[in-house]
């Protein structure tokens, strides 16, 4: 770090000739360019174009025309938008806290130096590398109300009328959430495990000497020390849950009825299937603003707690 600051100071003092600076910029850009051309063309421009499209009327047969906020008005009056928004929010409300809690619990469990712990860690990671399609297919069958193993187990422990899961409008979303937590927990466990191992052991020893009980150590040492990791995990989970698509398309197709239809399906249906580019961009812009707002709120909370 000290090297960086001293160098910045000398640069600021004007000891670095302009010619050298220009040369550095040229060399720097030459490294970035091969990736940047692709990145700019296929990510950056579409991102900006998406914003512009949301205030235009444009479909496969017409030329783009500025219409102001008309797309957003249409969207607010569109009942299927509200249904999808509600489902997406419910999915996020289930998926984010559950995955966070389960993966933190797993990481704490896996942070013990026990014989064979490496084997358990690897096993926990397996769901994450399995394709969502395969995961969705298998869980769909596990959730099958007629003879699927989950309901068989529930009957065994005395629940006479187990849920219909993906066949019922009330239980389809919980089924999707359970599947997604199962799949993602190993990934976030690794992030938490890395965070846990960066906590100095002395902090725990000091807390133990002060007579702190296990749960006190957890709240007063572990949780504060993991705050940066938790923030990162929250942001990743938020982005991931608001863009959920694959799992739902394969597991429920948005049904039964519209009980699991989410926003990204609306974007796909309106934009790519029906060619209503303007309208679908209004929905995707809304999706983006929601993710951004949630992330900013999380950032503010994290900042306040840091103090």
């Amino acid at each position, binding site marked *: 770090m000290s090297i960086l600051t001293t160098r910045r100071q000398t640069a600021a003092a004007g000891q670095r000739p302009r010619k050298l600076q220009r040369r550095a910029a040229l*060399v720097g850009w030459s490294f970035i360019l091969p*990736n940047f051309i692709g*990145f700019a063309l296929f990510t950056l421009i579409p991102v900006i174009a998406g914003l512009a499209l949301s205030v235009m009327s444009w479909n496969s047969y017409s030329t783009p025309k500025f219409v102001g906020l008309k797309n957003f008005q249409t969207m607010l009056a569109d009942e299927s938008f509200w249904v999808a928004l509600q489902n997406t929010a419910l999915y996020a409300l289930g998926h984010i806290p559950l995955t966070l809690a389960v993966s933190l619990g797993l990481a704490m469990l896996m942070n013990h*130096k026990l014989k064979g712990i490496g084997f358990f860690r690897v096993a926990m990671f397996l769901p994450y590398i399995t394709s969502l399609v395969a995961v969705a297919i298998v869980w769909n*069958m596990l959730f*099958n109300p007629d003879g699927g193993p989950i309901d068989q187990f529930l009957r065994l422990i005395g629940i006479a009328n187990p849920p219909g899961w993906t066949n019922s409008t009330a239980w389809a979303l919980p089924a999707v959430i359970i599947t997604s937590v199962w799949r993602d927990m190993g990934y976030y466990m690794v*992030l938490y495990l890395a965070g846990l*191992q960066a906590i100095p052991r002395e902090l725990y020893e000091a807390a133990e000497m002060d007579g702190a009980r296990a749960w006190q150590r957890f709240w007063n040492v572990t949780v504060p020390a993991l705050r940066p990791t938790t923030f990162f995990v929250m942001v990743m989970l938020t982005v991931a849950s608001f863009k959920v698509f694959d799992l739902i398309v394969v597991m429920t197709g948005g049904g039964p009825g519209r009980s699991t239809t989410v926003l990204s399906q609306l974007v796909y249906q309106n934009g*790519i299937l029906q060619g209503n580019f303007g309208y679908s961009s209004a929905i995707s812009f809304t999706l983006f603003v929601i993710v951004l707002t949630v992330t900013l709120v999380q950032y503010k909370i994290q900042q306040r707690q840091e103090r």
Partner: protein
Amino acid sequence: MSTISTDLDRELDRTSTGKSSRRRLTPSSKGTGRTRGRRIRVAALYMALVLMLAVVMIPFLWMVSASLKTNNEIFAVPIKWIPDNFQWSNYAAIWGKVPMMGYIQNTAYLAVIITGLQVLTGSFAAYGFAKIRFKGRDVLFMAYIGTIAIPWQSYMVPQYIMMEKMGLTNTFWSLILLQAFGAFGVFLMRQFYMTIPDELCEAARIDGLSEYGIWARVILPLSKPALASLALLTFVNTWNDYMGPFIYLTSNRLWTIQIGLQSFIGQYDAEYGMIMTGSVISVIPILIIFLLGQRYFIQGIATSGMKG
């Protein structure tokens, strides 16, 4: 398996800052009263571990078991974990029902090309971001990071329109161009390059190496583990990608294994055993790759969560 697990252990330890001393749960010389308490604790921990292992493994075991059953047996009450008659024929018949081999070839082709391009351009750009100081660099990097946090759905429609205008929909080109220049690769490699001391590049500069020479001869050899992480993560993501091929590839001969599998369910929705067979086949290549390179996976993911 034991060598694999110790590798993972070591990798996770390496990603930590090293400040934490190791915990030892083996009974020590602290006195017999505590030893007994410890033994109970260790037993409880193992019980929790085994429970979680069951939660993770049962769906996999069920998948394999179902892939070897007849359709009637799959939802039998009570569950039969071991089929009466192993239906090995499922594994022979599936290749004739759908062009499984073609799907696998398409997926492998896409995954290899995209991974190669991503690793090459990503590590090259990361050097510019990590080791060369120039005006506008940090702003540019923020643009890269920013797009990681934007859901793909917010810009997939403009991307699609672009590809359509260029006549690239329903070709592999569309997916290659969209996925090979991702920001994630640049981000991950930069995080790693930041940990390489600047003095090393400085020394190489004094020795007369150009920046390109430093990248090729100093940085690349040092970053083999990070390159492996990025390559493996990209490969698995591309292999498992569903939405990209779902949107862009419409003709059957271009389909990847995920799309093939999905359409197989549509065609033979009552052939539960066969569907499970297809799922098992789609998972096996990735499973092998993961088990061979798992320490790089874990390391790559742990690195992406570090502050840099």
